């Protein structure tokens, strides 16, 4: 280290130590363990743990669970990112003006954000029962007797779950978009109006570029939330029907309960790899696009 004061780095590397130490022990080491145990026959049924090569990978590939769950995870994450942002942006544009009614609406829409996702899951389980309130309302509106099993449809239940997830978080996305809209100066909008730009063009060419940081934040939090989601699916379907809504954490919870530790680690390892391959470029792309603007 140099004696001269100005030569000494202003930010000592020791400031990194507490954060990196905790992440190393409680995040990286388990991930490395994960990498190792995926090649063993670790389970709750026997005390010894032996290496079994790539047998676990062959198994999950063969029985189709891997590809099924992988598909479910990717669809879940992508749909949540899309819906959460669409709802959030739509609400922000609808409630942009500072009227009393709009402020009331924003507060109400933020309430689900504060609630536990598990509670939200139970609420929708009750709402979406075949003889539940939603079908009752739909029957009333359409005049037909509707008994659709929302949470027991192999083709669409996953879609409904992503909508529930987005319902829970849309209030947060809305707030972020509202804050983004506030960063647009009135002069810019006024200039656009004088230039004879219509509403849609103004939105596309004036507002959207200013919303880039809000989009990054919302996509990042939506990805984070959907990758780690458990509560909503657990409380509504438990992964069913026929594993069509079995996101990663549901699988882990289920196989852990069955004592099949090695299988659970194998699955999470593969999914984590695939998910990171998808998600990292997304975040980097969003950040870079922001810098260009």
């Amino acid at each position, binding site marked *: 280290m140099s004696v001269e004061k100005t030569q000494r780095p*202003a*930010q*000592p*590397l020791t*400031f*990194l130590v*507490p*954060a*990196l130490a*905790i*992440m190393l*022990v*409680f*995040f990286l080491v*388990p*991930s490395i*363990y*994960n990498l190792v*145990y995926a090649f063993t026959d670790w389970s709750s049924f026997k005390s010894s743990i032996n290496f079994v090569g790539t047998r676990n990978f062959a198994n999950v590939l063969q029985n189709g669970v891997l590809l099924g769950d992988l598909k479910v995870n990717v669809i879940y994450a992508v749909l949540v990112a899309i819906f959460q942002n669409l709802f959030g942006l739509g609400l922000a544009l*609808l*409630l942009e003006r500072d009227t009393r*009614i709009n402020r009331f*609406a924003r507060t109400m*829409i*933020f*309430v*689900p954000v*504060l*609630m*536990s996702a*598990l*509670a939200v899951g*139970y*609420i929708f389980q*009750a709402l979406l029962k075949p*003889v539940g*309130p939603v079908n009752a*309302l739909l029957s009333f509106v359409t005049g037909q007797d509707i008994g659709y099993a929302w949470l027991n449809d192999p083709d669409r239940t996953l879609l409904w779950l992503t909508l529930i997830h987005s*319902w829970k978080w849309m209030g*947060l996305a809305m*707030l*972020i978009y*509202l*804050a983004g809209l506030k960063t647009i100066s009135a002069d810019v909008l006024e200039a656009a109006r004088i230039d004879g730009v219509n509403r849609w063009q103004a939105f596309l060419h004036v507002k959207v570029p200013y919303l880039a940081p*809000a989009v990054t*934040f919302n996509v*990042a939090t939506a*990805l*984070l939330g959907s*990758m780690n989601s458990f*509560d909503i699916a657990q*409380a509504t379907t438990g992964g069913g029907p026929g594993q069509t809504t079995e996101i990663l*954490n549901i699988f*882990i919870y289920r196989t*852990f309960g069955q004592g099949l530790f090695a299988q659970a680690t194998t699955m*999470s390892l593969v999914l*984590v790899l695939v*998910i*990171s391959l998808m998600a990292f470029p997304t*975040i980097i792309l969003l950040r870079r696009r922001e810098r260009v603007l």
Partner: protein
Amino acid sequence: MRTGRSLIQPVAVLLLVAVVIGIPLWLVVVTSAKSQGDALDPSLALPTDGWHFAQNYARAFTEGRVIRAFLGSVSIVVPAAVLVLLFGSMASWVLARRTGAWLAAVYAVAISGIVIPPAVITLVLLLRQLRLAGTLSGMVLVYVGIYLSTAIFFITGFIRTIPHEVEEAARVDGAGPVRTFFTIILPLLRPVLATATILICLYIWNDVFFAFFVIGGRMDTLPLNLFQVASAGVYLNNWNLIFAYVVQMSLPLLVLFAVAQRRIISGITGGAVK
């Protein structure tokens, strides 16, 4: 046309809120007032069997151990949030200001937790080896490990928008790094720290997945006890008790939000769109 338009928006907004938010919340409140038989098939109708507010809430309160669960949740959230923000800010300061390929790699690893879910099963194994399984400190450290990535991602981005000159001045005046950090940097981070605090507290307060693996059966938290109330076979269809518990567990955050709404909203958005 003008007046027509100015009426359409408020009416549409109120209708939307009534359907999208009002119906689910009404279901919770009205069901929590019904008798067990009345609540078997959840509906939006008023109780046909008399109002059972007091009875249901008292039962959910004792069977869900609301007080212990609340204290458990608080004792986890507070230290976890403080450590995430403190350690996250310290690391972000270095990662935002200093350059080099080595530090860029450290930054990439540090934020990888945003997209990479923690390996929860081997995490439990590790906690057992460290004798931290089922303990408060184990749970706190697990959450810190999970959410440091998010904190570092947002705080580093924020620090990069702060001009260097402020801290340069302090350094020229002879302030050491510790003093510069705590007296100059940390106060400047207020907007982004507010955002991160609220987000991280929301995530941890409502988490049930990691809590289930790390402290399930050993400690009470509000969501864990909801899981327990709802999963117990006896309660399979006890929607009245489930929703009575949901109301009670949601109240602390709803009250806090009602009291500090403006500060919370500006807090969330302050550091998010920079």
